[in-house]
């Protein structure tokens, strides 16, 4: 389990990153390293250059900027978990981060790495979509903003261009009394989801005024269950409606069989997780 040789670079500014990316063909960005390094160790991957962006402060931190939460791409999972700001205003991120990997890995793994991977098994893509987050992508020529819903194109395939990096995540602060849940089923601690669903909703009295439902690891990307959302918006959500929403979720998911389960099981679990997530979010919301 030894990687091949590579050159190591540790830039301290964004511009240095861009310069290194342009100069070195086939250079890879090293964030937390907990996917890339194991892959390099079994020699499925042998980049000639590694660009370690752990030393770049402008990619870190969680702040509130005129009504929005800004999260630097290199913010670690444990920094998300320990953030009072997030705990208070966007608790679903904290809830989800706690379900990722294990304590040691959460000290290295970053929200940015989790997102740009475009791995359908990663948890943040669903969370970001459920929160209507926007990704700030940067390259030598400047920055652009891409909504989470249009960022994930396929399995390990995203909007992120060559020589472009994810700089920051920006998200609107959900209403104070919103309901939320990230319901994840996994075989054991640290495993990826067999199926998981993120739900963020708001009530107006008893009536659902807004809801986002997004599923993890049951398709080539995180899947937004729009039909289920449409079904619930403007209604008083009851068990029958939740059942129908779960059905919609099962209809659009398209999982791959692996040791976690076959297609039938994962599809069934997508429904289960969606059902539970809506129930929990509902119980947490106060109209």
């Amino acid at each position, binding site marked *: 389990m030894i990687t091949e*040789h590579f050159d190591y670079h*540790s830039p301290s500014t964004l511009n240095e990153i861009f310069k290194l990316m342009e100069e070195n063909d086939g250079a890879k960005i090293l964030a937390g390293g907990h996917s890339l390094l194991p892959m390099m*160790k079994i020699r499925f991957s042998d980049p000639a250059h590694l660009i370690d962006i752990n030393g770049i402060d402008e990619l870190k931190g969680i702040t509130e900027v005129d009504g929005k939460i800004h999260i630097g791409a290199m913010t670690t999972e*444990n920094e998300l978990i320990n953030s009072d700001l997030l705990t208070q205003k966007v608790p679903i991120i904290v809830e989800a981060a706690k379900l990722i990997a*294990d*304590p040691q890995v959460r000290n*290295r793994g970053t929200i940015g790495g989790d997102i740009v991977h475009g791995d359908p098994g990663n948890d943040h893509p669903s969370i970001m979509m459920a929160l209507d987050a926007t990704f700030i992508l940067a390259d030598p020529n400047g920055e652009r903003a891409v909504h989470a819903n249009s960022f994930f194109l396929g399995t390990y395939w995203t909007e992120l261009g060559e020589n472009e990096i994810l700089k920051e995540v920006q998200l609107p602060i959900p209403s104070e009394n919103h309901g939320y849940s990230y319901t994840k089923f996994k075989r054991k601690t*640290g495993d990826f989801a067999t199926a998981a669903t993120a739900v963020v909703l708001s009530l107006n009295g008893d009536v659902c005024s807004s809801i986002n439902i997004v599923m993890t690891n049951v398709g080539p990307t995180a899947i937004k269950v729009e039909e289920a959302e449409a079904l619930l918006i403007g209604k008083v959500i009851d068990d029958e409606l939740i059942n129908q929403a779960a059905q919609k979720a099962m209809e659009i998911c398209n999982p791959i069989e692996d040791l976690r389960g076959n297609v039938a099981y994962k599809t069934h679990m997508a429904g289960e997780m969606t059902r539970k997530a809506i129930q929990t979010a509902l119980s947490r919301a106060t109209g």
Partner: protein
Amino acid sequence: MKKIAVSFKLNGQQVDTLVEPRELLIHTLREQLMQTGSHIGCETSHCGACTVDFNGDSVKSCTLLTVQAEGAEVLTVEGLAGDDGLHPVQEAFMEEHGLQCGFCTPGMLMRSYRFLQENPNPSEEEIRMEMSGNLCRCTGYQNIVKAVQYASNKLQTTKGDA
């Protein structure tokens, strides 16, 4: 292949090493610096036997490049005991029979050492959650949980005395 000079603090001592960029921290610790307390169990960051304290965080040193340790503060099991004797977590594992073959123990100790600073008075559930990055095949964990509780009490009473 050209090597890079990397300097960091290991158990309070300044160390200077010369490594290939690809060298893993666990290998530098064990094979260059001869600190063989930290072990290699899986090499894919699942088992936690290689857990060390890195700039105040628990990390798995099998998935960290030594070049990333430039200027870092690294603490391994060898640095746990002080002049005044064993660290409470060490004493606790011995008192509560929290180890058998001893292979996962250094990682367990380094994780509990950090965890009890993050959460000095944890519930059993919190202990099980926050120690879940470390695998043990011998003990069934029950006595490890007791050991962490023992260390938690010891640390708080000694703090009380201080």
